[in-house]
């Protein structure tokens, strides 16, 4: 009964909804009915796909962009949080600690850069000290392993560059740093290797109830599935409301960052947080898995869910805050500013709901990256409760291997070039990335179609020159491998064209 009500309600609201529902019925015949369709391939959707691909179910992932990890998952602090932040007793607290514990094995199996370097929440005044005590107690309640409050001497021993006036710090040894987009890519790739399908440039425009489950209408065609997982990130409320009455609101919160050159990469050894306080959420300073230093973020509610612009004013404040913890940080070594939009909500928890086989994984704010694999397990539980009945696959492939030429020793490099000379051609000189690695990426389970798609897989263009030297060569390689003209190669998302046509004598080139 409820279903009928919903469809009627939708029809009343928008005229063309009826058409979509009709199209759906028409397409039903002869079209594959997937067990689960996942909307969105950020880290949450990718983790859900990975977890589901362990089961004997058919999975379709829908992604509105031309690659995975295109939203919040690509632009965040890249931290695996220990778990003392979330209010005790929430799902967020539980899944954070669980996700943290899962990260190591997962990253090992899927060849994702991850380092458990620990974190500090540093206190510089009375107020901060109170916050550190609160966080400690909360961490204990949340079951965070190994946390303790350390005095100024020990803090300075761990972080010799920390501000002289540090009073104490909360030390959490289980916190870590990760490559967030590779985490997402690795999870999605593994799902695809295990049979999940991914449809890119497929933005969901409508969802309707059908006899067998749901019909999800996208800009790339309709998809039928028994169950739907909504992992649409900053658009999760919109997707929810395509089928169900409003239940939550996504509040886009933008965070701006500076990324510093590797020459600053050893300025600190752990993730150095400051206390969240009246001036806003704390700014962190941390090494990255690539050896750079990250400084940020700000936190600002913004109207446009995809507005990742940076601003001079906000970054100035971020830098000022960073200097409070690590006064010697040389911000002139900045190689890139960026911003990400977090899918916050008004609830102090993740919004993990199931209704009639429609699962919302929404409001996945920080520590969503950390919690993602645990959220995915929780999502499978929700689906099982809703009736998904599938045994595990016996032949699940839980591995992924990526060549990172720069990280090999001379003998290994030598052997690799002998095997395949393309590993002897360095394309990205800042990060020593070879043509062999780029070709590996282009022929991986989710082939990148853009210069930044290569960047996310190979770390090309992430160094000092920011792609000034390797950009044109990567355009060439992509065009060659994809059998297309260089002018068709985009920088990033669909429409981000780089070239506007041939020069007057362009056609005459050899």
């Amino acid at each position, binding site marked *: 009964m409820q279903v009928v009500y919903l469809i009627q309600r939708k029809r009343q609201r928008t005229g063309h909804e009826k058409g979509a529902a009709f199209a759906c019925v028409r397409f039903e015949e002869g079209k594959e009915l997937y067990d689960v369709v996942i909307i969105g391939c950020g880290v949450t959707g990718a983790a859900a796909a990975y977890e589901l691909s362990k089961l004997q179910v058919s999975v379709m992932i829908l992604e509105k962009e031309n690659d995975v990890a295109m939203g919040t998952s690509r632009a965040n602090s890249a931290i695996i949080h220990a778990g003392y932040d979330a209010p005790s007793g929430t799902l967020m607290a539980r899944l954070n600690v669980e996700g943290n514990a899962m990260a190591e094995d997962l990253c090992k199996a899927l060849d994702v850069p991850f380092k458990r370097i620990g974190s500090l929440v540093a206190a510089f005044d009375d107020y901060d000290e109170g916050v550190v005590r609160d966080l400690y107690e909360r961490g204990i309640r949340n079951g965070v392993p190994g946390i303790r409050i350390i005095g100024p001497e020990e803090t300075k021993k761990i972080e010799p560059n920390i501000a002289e006036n540090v009073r104490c710090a909360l030390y959490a040894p289980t916190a870590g740093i990760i490559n967030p987009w590779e985490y997402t890519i690795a999870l999605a790739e593994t799902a695809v290797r295990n049979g999940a399908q991914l449809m890119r440039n497929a933005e969901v425009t409508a969802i309707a109830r059908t006899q067998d489950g749901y019909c999800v209408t996208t800009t790339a065609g309709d998809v039928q599935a028994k169950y739907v997982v909504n992992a649409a990130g900053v658009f999760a409320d919109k997707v929810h409301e395509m089928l169900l009455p409003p239940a939550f609101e996504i509040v886009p919160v933008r965070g701006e960052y500076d990324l510093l050159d590797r020459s600053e990469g050893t300025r600190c050894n752990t993730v150095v947080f400051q206390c969240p306080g009246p001036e806003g959420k704390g700014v962190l300073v941390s090494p990255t898995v690539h050896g750079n230093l990250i400084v940020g973020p700000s936190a600002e509610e913004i109207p446009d869910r995809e507005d990742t612009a940076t601003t*001079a004013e906000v970054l100035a404040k971020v830098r000022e805050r960073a200097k409070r913890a690590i006064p010697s940080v040389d911000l002139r070594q900045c190689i890139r500013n960026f911003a990400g939009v977090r899918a916050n909500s008004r609830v102090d928890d993740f919004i993990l709901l199931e209704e009639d086989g429609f699962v919302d994984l929404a409001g996945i704010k920080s520590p969503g990256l950390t919690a993602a694999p645990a959220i995915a397990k929780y999502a499978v539980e929700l689906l099982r409760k809703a009736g998904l009945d599938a045994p595990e696959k016996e032949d699940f492939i839980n591995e992924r291997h990526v060549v990172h030429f720069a990280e090999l020793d*001379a003998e290994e490099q030598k052997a690799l070039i002998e095997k395949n000379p393309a590993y002897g051609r360095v394309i990205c000189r800042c990060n020593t990335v070879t043509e062999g690695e780029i070709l590996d990426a282009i022929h991986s389970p989710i082939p990148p179609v853009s210069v930044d798609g290569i960047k996310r897989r190979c770390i090309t263009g992430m160094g000092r020159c*920011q792609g000034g030297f390797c950009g044109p060569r990567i355009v060439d390689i992509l065009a060659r491998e994809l059998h297309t003209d260089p002018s068709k190669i985009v920088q990033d998302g669909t429409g981000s064209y780089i070239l506007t046509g041939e020069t007057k004598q362009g056609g005459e080139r050899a």
Partner: protein
Amino acid sequence: MKEYYELIVIGGGPAGLAAAISAKENGLNDILILERDQVLGGILNQCIHNGFGLHHFKEELTGPEYAERFIRELDGTGIDVMTDTMVLEITKDRTVCAVSPKYGYLTLKAGAVILAMGCRERTRGAISIPGTRPAGILTAGAAQRFVNIEGYMVGKRVVILGSGDIGLIMARRMTLEGAKVLACVEVMPYSGGLMRNIVQCLEDFGIPLYLSHTITDIRGKRRVEGVTVSKVDENRRPIPGTEIEFDCDTVLLSVGLIPENELSRQAGIPIDPRTNGPMVDESLQTQVPGIFACGNVLHVHDLVDYVSDEAARAGAAAAAFVKNGAANEGYRLVKTADNVGYTVPQKIAKDAQQVQIFFRVRRIFEESVIEVRSGETLLAKFKRTHMAPGEMERIALPKVLLDKAGDEITISAKEA
């Protein structure tokens, strides 16, 4: 394959080529050039405009023509060249590790090493331009490669930030290719490029140059849709209320060049923070004996002709080092004072003969004088009618003059 060379030159651009040829002329027979690109010539290959060689060859050549002169000189010299070969590491004892698809992983030893890796362009991140990060924001050099080597245009309506020479050259190039260059925007009150380029690349095409302005916002999600340009105060801070909007699809950056010294730093070669290049003596030897540097890896030059001259001196000095070893009886330091940004060399051997000192001034000067002092003693004065930060200055100090100096000499500039 050979594992030892008397001299290994890292980089086959104008500096590397001239250095290798000079080393050969000065008696070395066993020389290797390592070049990361597929061909020799370096950045000259994409500089298809003319204006090269006026000093060195006394005629006006294009970049590829200028490079070709040197590449042809290699013929019959027996100098080995490995292209498509990337150096991964140099050590203080002059071991060079490199990789290439053709030669595999190479470990080579050298009697002397010349660093000639050139420079790279400063990027958007380094100057923190606010706004979105769509496609259509390129360094001028990357755009130049697309247009001149690949044969593709990078935009239709262009704003250029920075008035460095590559930006000015690209303003003209894009215009000739049918694009509309709306503005060249320079944060300083003067251009960082050569005067001849201001005239020939901007003024001749009616492209406005906005001095003391900068880009304060970039808009567009997928591709650049527009920029905001604001006037800046004397501290280079944007002045609210002075915003000008440009409807453009492309932003080219020409905001400075940085010597590429990652290999040098790795090798423990001390770098001068003012030049971002190695500290060298008058023979262009770095602080590590047997390792020399020349061209844009040492300091950013204005004219390639001066790169060739400098590289020839490095080649000769490297040859002398291989033949005679290091022999110096102490140094005088070269210091900078009023209005002088840096000097190359940073120190001079006490037994040096005539020495050339290169430097750049920090602001524009008309009638002016360069002073060379040692302590309180004024050693020499050089008159100039015009000096600008975009142009490299050069003075020559004869031995008789140097012999009057103490342990330091200081270079300064002031109005006459």
